[in-house]
């Protein structure tokens, strides 16, 4: 079976800076894959290329949605890519601050809805039913993520950890087959991180969603990932299972610097 995500020889230049250099990444159905690397390695940039925020300088990104043909998504707009089943969260939380928690999730349902202007104004039966369905679905997702007590709270009033989880809930509402999480544990306390850990595993198990995550919290990465990619200065310097990566001298060097290795 083809990989659900297959990025081949992706390069992204910002002027003279090569933020991502010839990266090959693939993810199979049901995998949890981590992308790690020191600050400024190009991880977020790689996410942005996959999700259409940037168009890669060279390279190709192909996806194979479950039960569908393989297709290239290179150069598509972010909203098209989301429609095709890739959803993401942001490193620096980007919630819709002045909307309620429920509405944030409802926005995630946007691309699975149909109502247009006429539907909005005339509010025919189909539109009403769709609207009710979306409210119910969104509430169900909040419940899964454990945010149902905050339903009508404005997103900006949520505690930090809850905001991170709301980002995940919002992404899940788009019905993705691949979820891209950019440092989901950043700023969380150890207890919250452990909960997150369980939540990610649960998402994979119950929703059949594969996951690519960027994370600096090594205990989280090592405990939940099936495979790990290590990026340094835009280059992928290692790939493999957690224990292989942990023992890889190139990785140790990238993280701890030359002197330590000597």
């Amino acid at each position, binding site marked *: 079976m083809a990989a659900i995500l297959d990025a081949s020889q992706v390069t992204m230049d910002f002027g003279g800076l090569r933020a991502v250099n010839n990266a090959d990444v693939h993810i199979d159905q049901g995998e949890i894959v981590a992308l790690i690397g020191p600050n400024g390695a190009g991880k977020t940039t790689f996410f942005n290329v996959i999700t259409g925020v940037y168009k890669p300088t060279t390279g190709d990104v192909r996806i194979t949605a479950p039960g569908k043909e393989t297709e290239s998504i290179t150069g598509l707009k972010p*909203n098209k890519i989301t429609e095709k089943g890739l959803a993401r969260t*942001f490193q620096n939380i980007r919630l*819709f601050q002045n*909307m309620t928690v429920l509405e944030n999730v409802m*926005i*995630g349902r946007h691309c699975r809805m149909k109502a247009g202007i006429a539907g909005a*104004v005339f509010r025919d039966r189909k539109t009403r039913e769709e609207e009710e369905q*979306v409210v119910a679905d969104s509430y169900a997702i909040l419940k899964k993520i454990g945010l149902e007590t905050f339903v*009508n709270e404005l997103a900006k009033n949520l505690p930090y950890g809850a905001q991170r989880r709301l980002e995940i809930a919002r992404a899940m509402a788009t019905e993705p087959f691949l979820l891209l999480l950019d440092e989901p544990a950043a700023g969380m306390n150890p207890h919250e991180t452990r909960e997150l850990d369980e939540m990610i595993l649960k998402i994979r198990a119950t929703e059949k969603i594969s996951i690519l995550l960027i994370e600096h919290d090594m205990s989280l990465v090592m405990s939940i990932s099936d495979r790990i990619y290590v990026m340094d200065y835009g280059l992928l310097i290692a790939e493999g299972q957690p224990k292989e990566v942990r023992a890889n001298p190139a990785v140790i060097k990238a993280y701890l610097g030359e002197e330590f290795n000597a």
Partner: protein
Amino acid sequence: MVTLKQIRNSVLIALWMMILTFPIMVIKVNTIENIVIWRWMNLLYIGVGTVILSIFWFFLINRRKLEPEERKRSFALKGKIETLKGVLAKPVVQKPLYAALLVIIIIFPFVSSLYQTGIMITALMYVILGLGLNIVVGLGGLLHLGYAAFYAVGAYTYALLHRYLGLSFWVCLPIGALSAMLLGILVGLPVLRLRGDYLAIVTLAFGEIVRILLENLSQYTGGPAGISGIPRPSFFGIKMSLSTAMNYTYFLTFALVLFTIFVVRRLEHSRLGRSWVAMREDEVASEAMGIDITRAKLSSFALGALWAGLAGVFFSAKTTFVNPASFTLWESVIILCVVVLGGIGSIKGVVLGAIVIILLPEYLRAFSQYRMLFFGLILVMMMIFRPGGFIPAKRRVYTFDKAQLEESD
């Protein structure tokens, strides 16, 4: 309440004001008799006035910093206002209130003078304009400074179509609205790639271009002199006296206000309206959530233009005369103020904003010299003490019954 340091600052500010205003407020030169009159009392007034105002200002600022709980205690009146709000929010109270308001609005034109009815029609028209711009600025978050251009398109569509083709108000109403919307789409396509300040500058320029075009295409538009003799709205061709015609226009405008509120409310809580608000909150995130930004922007821009067009046709019909001077940048700014002062994204707020901004200056004609001064002062104060506007927008609260809560387990 007010610290000693703040009082000292107030005194310093007052001294500064006294020095600043000394030349104009104290010295008066009588050029005929070649003497200088020293009005020292003025200096005293300014000093004392400034100290009092400034201490009051510091008092307000301090109060703002208090926690909401403390604030309530420090200001007993505030607590009473809160309870009053609670009572007003009850449906039992609200329904009769709205009914009473409706009765007042219906009776108004029959008991007021023609002049007053005219002002009221203007205020209602600004409600429509405000609600229309609210779609663009309030919901979509697109800073639009050329709204008057679309208003002009509606107005001139009726004026020109009547002048050259003799078309009536009712035929021109949809045509005016649609042509404004069409122009909105045409302009929006290239312009909406810009964000924030850049969008503001380009829309501002567009507004001026339209006005200047209207001024200079004089062989068609009559140039700065405009077009006159535009008929008021007709009612199955019945001849009406001036006052009946005015009352009729009043009710038509009111009906359009109700229609606008109805449509905007529905839009607001729909898939489309939510996508506008999401776009306003964060463009990158909303695109990542599957919202087509180009479409969301264009639709809010075009629908805003549509309402400007409708209001424009009404404007022509009400004043029976149009010229480019009615569609200056100032007009766009006033409409924007209606939205911002009233409450960005809030329907009730915009309605109140329009009424306050249009009616207050009319009834405060005595102070007309200081109108702009007050206006600026109010805007600054609002931004500091009530940044959400008179009636800030509230998000919808969804309730879930028990069955629903359990079902989703």
